[in-house]
């Protein structure tokens, strides 16, 4: 379970998030929606205690205070961030990264035979050409390829808490379908908690039950269920956020 209480996040002197509170239970899918510039991506990185942020308040994952941990330790706890624009790293292959990450997580060398076998299986599941395993991380890939490439790491590292930061951004209909189906498949297999940050309803069609919160001015102004996301899609944020009451379902 992830519990964020009284969170304030600043960059230099600018307050991005203020009095932000949210609880996401084990296995829960929680959707965070909001207009541009309200701090949605900030919360994604703040959960990982991003070094650029000044963080006050509490972020606890299964009782562990994340604000006191470094980024790597948070990753090792089983949290996974899939960013809006995944970084390109020429010179490091997916296989190198995943192998090293698994080795550090398990604190022992990994069995190469099993590793390769699982890589092949994952490529089949997410419909990713096997050649991607030995390609440099997200380098020279299209937007859709990058998202699918990130799914390779996700399936291999088996996180228990997934943060999807506008994963639907830059995806065409076919790519969105592949990514959505793959995420749904992972959810069915592992039942992780998922925090989905998005502007749109489209990616949500791949999930059955989820909670929705609206972020405005650095804190949550309204919460509800999937109906709220549909309302947002239909009428926009202004109609739903201005004068909206918290926890109004």
């Amino acid at each position, binding site marked *: 379970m992830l519990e964020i209480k009284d969170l304030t996040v600043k960059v230099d002197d600018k307050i991005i998030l203020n009095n932000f509170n949210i609880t996401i239970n084990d296995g829960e899918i929680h959707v965070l929606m909001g207009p541009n510039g309200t701090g949605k991506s900030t919360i994604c*990185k703040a959960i*990982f205690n*991003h*070094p*650029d942020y000044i963080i006050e308040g509490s972020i606890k994952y299964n009782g562990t205070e994340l604000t006191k941990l*470094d*980024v*790597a330790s*948070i*990753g*090792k706890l089983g*949290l*996974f*961030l899939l*960013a809006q624009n*995944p*970084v390109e*790293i*020429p*010179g*490091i292959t997916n296989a*190198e*990264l*995943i192998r*090293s*990450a698994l080795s*550090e*997580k398990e604190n022992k060398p990994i069995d190469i035979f099993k590793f390769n076998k699982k890589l092949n299986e994952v490529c089949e599941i997410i419909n990713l050409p096997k050649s991607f395993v030995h390609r*440099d*991380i997200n380098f020279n890939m299209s937007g859709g390829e990058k998202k699918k490439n990130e799914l390779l*790491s996700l399936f291999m*590292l088996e996180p228990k808490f997934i943060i999807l930061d506008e994963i639907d951004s830059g995806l065409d209909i076919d790519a969105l379908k592949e990514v959505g189906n793959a995420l749904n498949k992972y959810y069915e297999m592992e039942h992780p908690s998922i925090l989905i940050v998005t502007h749109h309803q489209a990616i949500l069609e791949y999930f059955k039950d989820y909670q929705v919160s609206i972020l405005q001015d650095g804190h949550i102004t309204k919460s509800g269920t999937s109906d709220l996301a549909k309302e947002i899609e239909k009428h926009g944020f202004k109609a739903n956020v201005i004068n909206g009451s918290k926890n109004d379902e």
Partner: protein
Amino acid sequence: MGLKMMNKLLLVENTTLTSGTYFISYKEALNLNIKDDVTLAHYEEEGNNININLLNNAHLNLYYVYEIKKSSTITITTNNSNLLKAHFLLLNKGDNTLEIKLNMLGNSSEASLNLRVINENNSSSINVLCTGKIAASTIDNTLLEDLKGLLLNNSSIKISPNIEVDTNEVMANHLVTIGSFNTQELFYLKSKGLSEKEAKNMLLKAFLFNALPKELEEKINLEVINFE
């Protein structure tokens, strides 16, 4: 921190290399002629000077993997219709100056000088002087200098990109960047559970050896160890 190349061909005198892939080292200053289409992977421990001369129509892919332990000079000369892609992958140990000189004497040649340099530790400093000269009355030459230094902690890197042009018909560019680790890349790797040390080691290897073809990687021990 160290680099190693295995199965190297030791050259001790003036040599002409013809088409093929070569792994070389040498004990003394060396003069080398390049003929036809040559890939040259070079590992140098001693820091001796080297002169490389491309004969007409020669193509050279140079991978110069070098632990800099003393100041030295690399001189490359192009003649007519040459294609030169030179990669200098350098680990500096100590307080040194490396001079790279390219003389483009003929016509219709294309040359790129790609440098990646890091210092072994805080007390190391490197001064790279890279000078490309395009001779008078030559035509249709292209020169690109792409020179990058990765700063570790408080070490010092100075890179001087120089292009001296004595002709009107040439295309020449130079690019220099010196900086620390990319914080976004570091955050990405660490968010996957890699320790700071492991993430930096991976980025360090990527910075130095990204240009190295896969078929050459197995000849070189790419472990960059004991990074702190």
